[in-house]
């Protein structure tokens, strides 16, 4: 009965959405709806209030869609019509995403009660690797071996795809030598750590193939998958495994928590100031997906049931996002998943924008493949909610197509006079502005604490210029994309402009030109001023996004392999010979720490001991340290750790990564809803500041070119092993180059 009533009410709402009432009726409705949404935003974002918000907002958006469809698509000329259709398509895409997102996020849930476990199942931990630095692998394996789990039930495997037989026997002798060296090093490391080292003859099916090859050697009831840069906290298994008490659960996924900023956060210096870019997915969307039993495997930080995997023949590898593909198949078989919103692993983000683009292109290609090869709307066995959620996740990755249109659409009118949007000022006030306001308000409502306003637009606009081609090529040939590994653990010794900046220069130039044309049109075509105003403001938004993008494309150096993490002023004692004094740890990494309250001068390179009560192991810990830097003004000293044994190293790793509560605190600290305007102000301020630095660097580069000195600018990147990096120029190391150029110009030729 309720269902019938719901369908009837839905039908009426749909009918009213399509009702082309007079403009003043629409204006009144829009205004009142916006006030209502604003009021609802002040209430707890749960239950009936949440559904009311989404329904009312959806109604207004649907009204916009109908108006847009039946009123604004006039035919003036072929080019204008084509441009207006492209824009209309992009808007339809955006609206479809809104509605899918509303369904997905209608009722987010959390599993606050952990089921009781009497008999713990056996667990195999898979740590797949390809070309990551040995230091990172060692760190992760050490943390995995230290997991709080009955040792006889825990078996750890390093799945090395970087030293497969094919790679060791590669025709390129240098590459073969590197692979062989890696093989020897990692095998020795595994033997030392008590980890089973596995490799295979070749690299077929990439990560999925690697995992499937390991399945033949492993026999545990559960499989935990951790990327080799994902360091687990000690309670990773204790928190996740109990959820397998439900025999239908095939997956317990936890968030990917990153202790390093992504390149955009890093370059804009927004890390720690705003929620992480992935927080929206892991802290909000996954909770909504979990409600629909559609939370899916994200490739790492998850535990899976072996029996379920065997039922579908292991990990699927038809697409380059094997994780989502495998989950989709298992959900279709009736298995259930659980999303545990508790950060239990600490990972590393890509260091450069190029690496980020590479990662996101793979995701985009994979999800487009999923859309084409296993369309969730057609796949048998899925529930209605699951279909929508999976469709939402795959459909999202078409955003590059829409974003490129949104970037270019105002220019189509301003530069070429193409009539892309047939509406007058009153219609814009009654339909378009409320539509935009509703989009902003609902983004704020659903994700305000985990994603600030316009951050999505900013990231998507930056990535879309590169993902566009990837999506189109996948659409043309869905089976072509190959798995590419995201580089991790890069160290950048200098600041440089990303080599991917070129299209942004071009767009910035065109957008600036758009303003000139807007002024010209304003003078010459007074009858089109509503259109000029609309596209002009739109162009301004694009301009600001592009400026901020240039800021984000000025890559900041990253010299540390191990990120320093805050430890909340942990008390300790620093001992040098007979001297001993109390200190507090400001931050700590596996490499070293920054100590506070040190007022007496210390000799650099002097070695001593740092003693403290281990917060995870709950026992005294004494670590050998060396002074590397001191600031008497700040009463601080930097030390590097010199662990003497594997046990010390393990204790150090647990000190840094063992406590999952710290991750939760870090995450909570970053999650704050500061409102649309404030968020925008911060983003623009950071973007403009960094963009200024970008332009200064660019100006210097121009000056050098005038002096006929054109060095090959590359960032100095370091890692312990050679990586399979993208070929070609990586970046422009202006800092270094400037120094060289200055030296060169001072010295007279000859």
């Amino acid at each position, binding site marked *: 009965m309720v269902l019938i*009533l*719901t369908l009837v009410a839905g039908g*009426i*709402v749909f009918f009213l959405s399509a009702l082309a009432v007079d403009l003043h009726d629409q204006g009144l409705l829009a205004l009142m709806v916006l006030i209502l949404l604003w009021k609802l935003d002040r209430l707890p974002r749960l*239950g009936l209030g949440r559904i*009311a918000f989404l329904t009312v907002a959806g109604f207004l958006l649907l009204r916009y869609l109908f108006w847009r469809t039946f009123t604004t698509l006039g035919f003036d000329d072929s080019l204008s019509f084509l441009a207006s259709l492209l824009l209309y398509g992009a808007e339809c895409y955006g609206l479809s995403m809104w509605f899918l997102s509303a369904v997905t996020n209608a009722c987010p*849930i959390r*599993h606050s009660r952990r089921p009781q476990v009497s008999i713990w199942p056996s667990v195999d931990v898979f740590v797949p690797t390809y070309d990551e630095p040995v230091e990172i692998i060692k760190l992760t394996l050490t943390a995995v071996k230290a997991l709080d789990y009955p040792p006889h039930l825990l078996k750890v495997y390093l799945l090395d795809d970087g030293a497969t037989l094919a790679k060791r026997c590669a025709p390129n002798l240098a590459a073969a030598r590197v692979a062989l060296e890696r093989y020897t090093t990692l095998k020795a490391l595994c033997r030392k750590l008590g980890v089973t080292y596995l490799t295979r003859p070749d690299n077929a099916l990439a990560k999925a193939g690697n995992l499937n090859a390991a399945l033949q050697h492993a026999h545990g009831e559960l499989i935990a998958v951790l990327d080799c840069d994902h360091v687990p906290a000690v309670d990773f298994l204790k928190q996740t495994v109990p959820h397998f008490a439900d025999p239908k659960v095939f997956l317990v996924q936890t968030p990917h928590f990153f202790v390093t900023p992504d390149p955009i956060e890093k370059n804009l210096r927004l890390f720690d100031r705003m929620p992480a870019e992935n927080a929206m997915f892991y802290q909000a969307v996954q909770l909504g997906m979990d409600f629909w039993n559609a939370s899916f495997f994200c490739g790492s930080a998850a535990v899976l049931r072996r029996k379920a995997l065997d039922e579908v023949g292991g990990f699927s590898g038809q697409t380059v996002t094997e994780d989502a593909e495998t989950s989709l198949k298992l959900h279709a078989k009736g298995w259930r998943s659980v999303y545990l919103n508790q950060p239990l692993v600490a990972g590393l983000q890509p260091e450069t924008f190029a690496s980020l683009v590479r990662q996101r292109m793979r995701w985009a290609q994979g999800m487009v493949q999923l859309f084409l090869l296993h369309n969730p709307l057609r796949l048998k066995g899925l529930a209605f909610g699951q279909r929508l959620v999976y469709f939402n996740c795959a459909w999202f990755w078409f955003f590059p197509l829409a974003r490129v249109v949104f970037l270019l659409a105002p220019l189509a009118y301003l530069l070429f006079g193409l009539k892309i949007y047939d509406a007058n000022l*009153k219609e814009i*006030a009654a339909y378009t502005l409320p539509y935009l306001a509703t989009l902003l308000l609902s983004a704020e409502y659903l994700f305000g604490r985990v994603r600030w306003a316009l951050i999505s637009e900013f990231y998507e606009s930056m990535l879309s210029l590169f993902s566009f081609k990837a999506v189109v090529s996948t659409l043309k040939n869905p089976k072509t994309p190959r798995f590419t590994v995201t580089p991790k653990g890069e160290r950048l010794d200098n600041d440089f402009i990303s080599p991917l900046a070129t299209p942004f220069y071009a767009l910035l130039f065109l957008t600036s030109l758009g303003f000139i044309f807007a002024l010209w049109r304003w003078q010459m075509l007074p009858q089109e001023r509503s259109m000029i105003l609309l596209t002009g403001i739109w162009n301004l938004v694009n301009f600001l996004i592009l400026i901020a993008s240039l800021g984000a494309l000025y890559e900041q150096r990253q010299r540390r392999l191990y990120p320093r993490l805050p430890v909340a002023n942990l008390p300790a004692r620093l001992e040098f010979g007979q001297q001993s004094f109390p200190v507090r740890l400001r931050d700590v990494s596996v490499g070293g720490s920054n100590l506070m309250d040190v007022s007496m001068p210390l000799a650099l390179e002097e070695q001593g001991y740092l003693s403290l009560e281990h917060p995870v192991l709950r026992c005294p810990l004494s670590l050998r340290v060396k002074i590397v830097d001191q600031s008497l003004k700040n009463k601080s000293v930097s030390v590097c750790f010199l662990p003497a044994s594997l046990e010390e190293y393990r204790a150090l790793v647990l000190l840094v990564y063992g406590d999952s509560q710290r991750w939760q605190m870090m995450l909570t600290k970053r999650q704050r809803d500061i409102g649309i305007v404030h968020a925008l102000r911060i983003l623009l301020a950071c973007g403009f500041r960094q963009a200024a630095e970008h332009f200064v660097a660019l100006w210097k580069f121009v000056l050098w070119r005038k002096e006929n000195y054109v060095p090959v600018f590359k960032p100095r990147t370091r890692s312990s092993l050679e990586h399979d990096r993208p070929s070609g120029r990586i970046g422009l190391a202006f800092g270094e180059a400037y120094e060289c150029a200055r030296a060169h110009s001072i010295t007279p030729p000859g």
Partner: protein
Amino acid sequence: MSAPEPIRLRHQADEYTLSLPIPDRWQVKSARLTLDFVHSNALIAKRSQLRVQINGLTVGQWRLDPNSPKRLETIAIPSEFLVPGYNELRFSAAQHYTEDRCEANTSPELWTEINPTTSFLKLEYAMVPPLLSLTQLNQVFDKKLPQAEIALLFPNLDLSEQELAIGSLIAQGIGLRLEYAPFRFNLAQAKSQPAERIHLALPQDQDAVLIGTRAHLAPFLDPQLISHIAGPYLGLFTNPQAPAQALIIVSGTTTEEVHQAALAFALMRFPVPDAQETVISKLNIDPEPGSSALQPNRTYTLAQLGFTTASRQGLVPPPIEFEVYLPADAFAPEEAEVVFELHLAYNAGLRQDSLLEMRINGIFERALQLPEVGGAHYRNYRISIPLRTFRPGRNRVSFHPLLVPQISGECIFFNTESLKVTIYEDSQVTVPPFSHYVELPDLSLLARAGFPYLASSDGSGIGVHLLDRKPETILSSWQLIAQLARLNQAPLSKITFSLAEPNAPLDWIVVGQDLQKFAALFPNTSVHLDRPKIFSYPTSLTPVAPQAWWRAVLFLPELAELKPRPVHIAQTGSLGRFAIGLSFKHPILPDKLITAFLAETELYPAIAQLTRPELWPQMQGDLLFWRKEDNSVLWQRTTERFYRGSAQPSLRLIFHFARHPWQWLGVALAVCLLLAWLLHRQLKRYKQRHHPDAEETAP
């Protein structure tokens, strides 16, 4: 002579043209034109003059002397210059402020004004007897006559319902021939008076129509003439007592044949047959008559709308105009647009600020710039006008050229010959889809389009109820029907006249002077004409609603809203010399309308006054008050309104919500919140089933 607009002649050379109608049956004996005019005292007499032309021939001229700028001049116009038809009376001024230097053409001191109320043309004329041929009917009832007065003669004034219908057809035939010209009828009983062939006492100064069956007319016509009435009969004769006056005989062997003859009289507006008498043997009317109204979702060429290719020349030439007729109940969503695709051309040598102003009913809507110096020819120049810009009924679409020569300035020859623009008749008008849905009562719809009475073009939807049989009441009903026939541009042959209670499923026009009977028939009208009388008094007739704050926020225009708040006062007294018009929903028949025209005295003069071109368009609201000598009507909106039409439910809702925006808001939000509640229940149930241990959380 009087004209509704001031006559101003400006610039170096200007002219003003009046149309001077001379009826075909007038023979002008003499004409004297008296002009009262004032001109600028900055003009120089030597070069400035005012000239009067009749049909292009100069009949008088005056030097404009700055020493005597106020002038009263009289000239005699040779009578032979004034011919039957429309004569062109033109005033041309040549105005200069300097003798020997070049001067600015548009200098503000170059002006002359003719006072339109104190200037006059005095004509002396004689009536010419009509030619005794039915082809002359259009000349007998000539729209060029300043005020036609026609006597309608019946052998017996105790008219039956069928005779009332016949009388209305005669009235329509006369009204249609006179087009826009005012007219009045006299209803009289035919009285015999010996004369040759026609033994009838007739008014000396009026044309007359004698109506009756052969038997009834036998006492008035000689046997030979009677013998000609062998079926539906029409004959044109002269008044035996006043040969300049015409007498039309409408007869037949039976009342049905008389009806048929009357219908033929109303229809025969084409000059055949060329005979004094005719007997109609058969009369076929297309059962589905065509309509001149625009149909939804159709494309018309301007030629189909009666427009022929037109060119204009000069700086500010007269506009290029045509009419479109929009059904009075046409209703479409706000964004529905009428699209004009113009086929036009303009000459080379125009300055870039030359343009063509498009006006709908005199209101500026769009401008077409004519920017090409080398001239241009446009096909399908698109102009979109919202359908709601058009009024119900006739709409005048006009294009006003403002043409400027490329080379202009002091002492430079203005090539006005090249200032030309043409609009072609194959230009198209595309009408958007619309429905027929309207809010009633609204007397403005009756005024503009005869709605709802002309919903069917043969009048089959009209019922006319007479409260009494007084001649004034009968004439009033005929006058009103003739007015409706004019709006319809065709006779309404299927009108139902009723003296019984008006309960047939028709839209009724109630006319009469028996106010007691009216009050008994319709006790619930907003104005009670019983004793004591209850009159409606407007406390705020046309207040403008204060600007709604939400409209200001959305940059929407201020809506001038008519918010009548009538008070009703029961009191003694009477209507006196006032007539009232009252429109309201039929108390029994759903969706049917009653419009009553009532007066205690002087009903017919008041109705005749109401149907004059200056009063009729003023009708609006649902309650009218006016007197026979008034030039304006007082109106109010007093009664409950209702919707009528056959629109889709969605359009009905749009129509309703356009008038009740808060209801729209309430309904939309209520349904959304209901849906939200239902969805929430469903989700809650789903959660209990699938995630009993999980908690809802807000990320």
